[in-house]
């Protein structure tokens, strides 16, 4: 099966500043790919590139290609790309509190997506909206459709944003930190809803998050970004069991565990370097416990390991019994 979304060694720059360097990812229908990394690692930029929205922030693809269902997004016309966004690619924004227009009723905002992309009439679009809201387990869908955004809670708003993303019958959903602004109980519900959509309707989901806990819960594969480069990518199970890249290991070390001694939760010392001053060699070496001379000079390339890839000179060997 060919991948629905494929990033082939994509490099991105804003102005003259290179931000993403050779990111390769692929996502198939019915799968969830988690994209993780700290703030500033290039997660959201990767999503912008996947939707062809880079010109909006003054960025451009400087190398590689983004393919959606085999077609190169970079070679499309603006109109084709616009039809893709909201149509075949749905997008769930980071902050539901501000993702809805405060002066439009909820229903209108969802209606307009299916009117634009499916060519539905007002009446048919509203029927579809109500159906979507009901399916997302929103009680009293008709009353909610007539409500204003400020009358809804955060979790409710995020469901509306998901309904908007689904209204155009997408095949791929890109969710940019969909749960970051929500409280914990609501987070679990939203993640559950997104997971169910993928299972029941065969959608592909690119889940951008910095929460490794969420990744462990729902994702099939995970890609770890660091400072604009891919650090490690592969199936969730093996990576959580035995991370090869020291950065992945450090991220996993940041998840609170049962029975952890007080104060045992580890952070990662230092911060993601600024794009204006990426260190030479491996960009993680200033914060890396395994850094050697080699890491200061030469950037490691992603190499196959088990069912994934890792970019590290000192990757942990795979556990016994695996190639």
């Amino acid at each position, binding site marked *: 099966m060919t991948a629905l979304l494929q990033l082939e060694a994509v490099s991105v720059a804003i102005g003259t500043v290179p931000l993403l360097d050779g990111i390769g990812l692929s996502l198939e229908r019915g799968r969830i790919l988690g994209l993780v990394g700290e703030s500033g690692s290039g997660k959201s930029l990767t999503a912008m590139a996947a939707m062809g929205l880079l010109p909006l922030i003054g960025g451009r693809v400087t190398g590689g290609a983004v393919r959606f269902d085999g077609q190169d997004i970079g070679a499309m016309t603006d109109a084709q790309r616009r039809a893709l*966004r909201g*149509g075949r690619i749905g*997008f769930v924004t980071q902050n539901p509190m501000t*993702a809805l227009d405060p002066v439009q009723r909820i229903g209108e905002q969802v209606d307009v997506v299916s009117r634009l992309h499916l060519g539905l009439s007002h009446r048919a679009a509203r029927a579809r909206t109500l159906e979507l809201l009901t399916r997302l387990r929103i009680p009293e869908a008709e009353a909610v459709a007539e409500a204003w*955004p*400020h009358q809804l809670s955060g979790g409710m708003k995020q469901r509306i944003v998901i309904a908007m993303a689904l209204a155009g019958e997408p095949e791929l959903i890109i969710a940019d930190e969909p749960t970051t602004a929500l409280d914990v109980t609501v987070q679990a519900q939203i993640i559950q809803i997104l997971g169910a959509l993928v299972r029941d309707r065969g959608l592909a989901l690119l889940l951008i998050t910095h929460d490794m806990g969420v990744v462990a819960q729902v994702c099939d594969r995970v890609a770890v970004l660091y400072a604009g480069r891919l650090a490690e990518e592969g199936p969730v199970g093996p990576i959580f069991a035995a991370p090869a890249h020291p950065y992945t290991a450090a991220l996993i070390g940041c998840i609170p565990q049962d029975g952890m001694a007080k104060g045992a939760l580890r952070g990662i010392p230092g911060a993601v370097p600024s794009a204006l001053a990426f260190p030479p060699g491996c960009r993680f070496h200033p914060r890396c416990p395994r850094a050697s001379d080699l890491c200061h000079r030469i950037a490691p390339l992603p190499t196959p390991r088990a069912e994934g890839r890792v970019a590290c000179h000192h990757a942990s060997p795979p556990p016994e019994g695996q190639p």
Partner: protein
Amino acid sequence: MMAWPAPLRALGHPMGGLAGGWLLLVAAAAVLAPFLTPYAYDVQDLPQAYQPASAAHWLGTDEFGRDLLTRLIYGARTSLSVSAAAIAVSVLCGMVLGAAAAWFGGWPDRAVTVAVDLTWSFPEILIALILVAIIGPGTTGVMVAIAVAYLAQFTRLTRAQIMTLKGETFVEAARCLGAGTGHILFRHLLPNALAPVLVSAMLATGDAIILEATLGFFGLGAQPPVPSWGGMMSAGSALVFKAPWVIIFPGLAVAITVVAINLYGDALIAELDIRQKLRRTA
């Protein structure tokens, strides 16, 4: 859920209700003027000149024996319609200019900003006087003068609003869902910018009434015998000691109306402020 629109809800505020009531009264009087008074505004009755308030002439008469209340009501017609129409034109042009500047950026933005800053470096009255001098005295000249004098304010406000809104997540979200420029501009940006611009237009109408009265006082507004509040004050200024009511009542009409507009505007701000409500519920 509140079903009433904000302008009606503003009447529920104690001051907003009082002020709104006065404005409705003045507007209704202006519209119904011919049915409210037995006198004509332009027929002279010299034996009745300089009469103080009486049962026949509630607010007295002027130097030509014309009923002051009648002229005040007809004057409201001129003053209110000229001010409101001028502000409406000003708001429309200002929104177009401001939105274009904010949306396109680059040289259109710089051109608009420089022009706005230039007009702001002159007092409004000076701009108005120059324009009236060019166009000639009369209601048209005053209307254009007021519209241009307040254009900068609405341009600047709309530009600032759109600039802020452009970065909002819901605009980004609309774009991510495939919305085009027209949809974003007319369905998201302008409707969100509308409330503050309308409130500011409301308050500017008060200032415009004062400007209109000032121009009328200089004899540049509606030409006699058509009454305007400013023109009436101008005539009354010569009679301050002989018949003070001739200047006092038009002056009071201007003052009370402008205060009422401001009070009603405050109530409207309280009702319209969607953002603040958003913060309260969030």
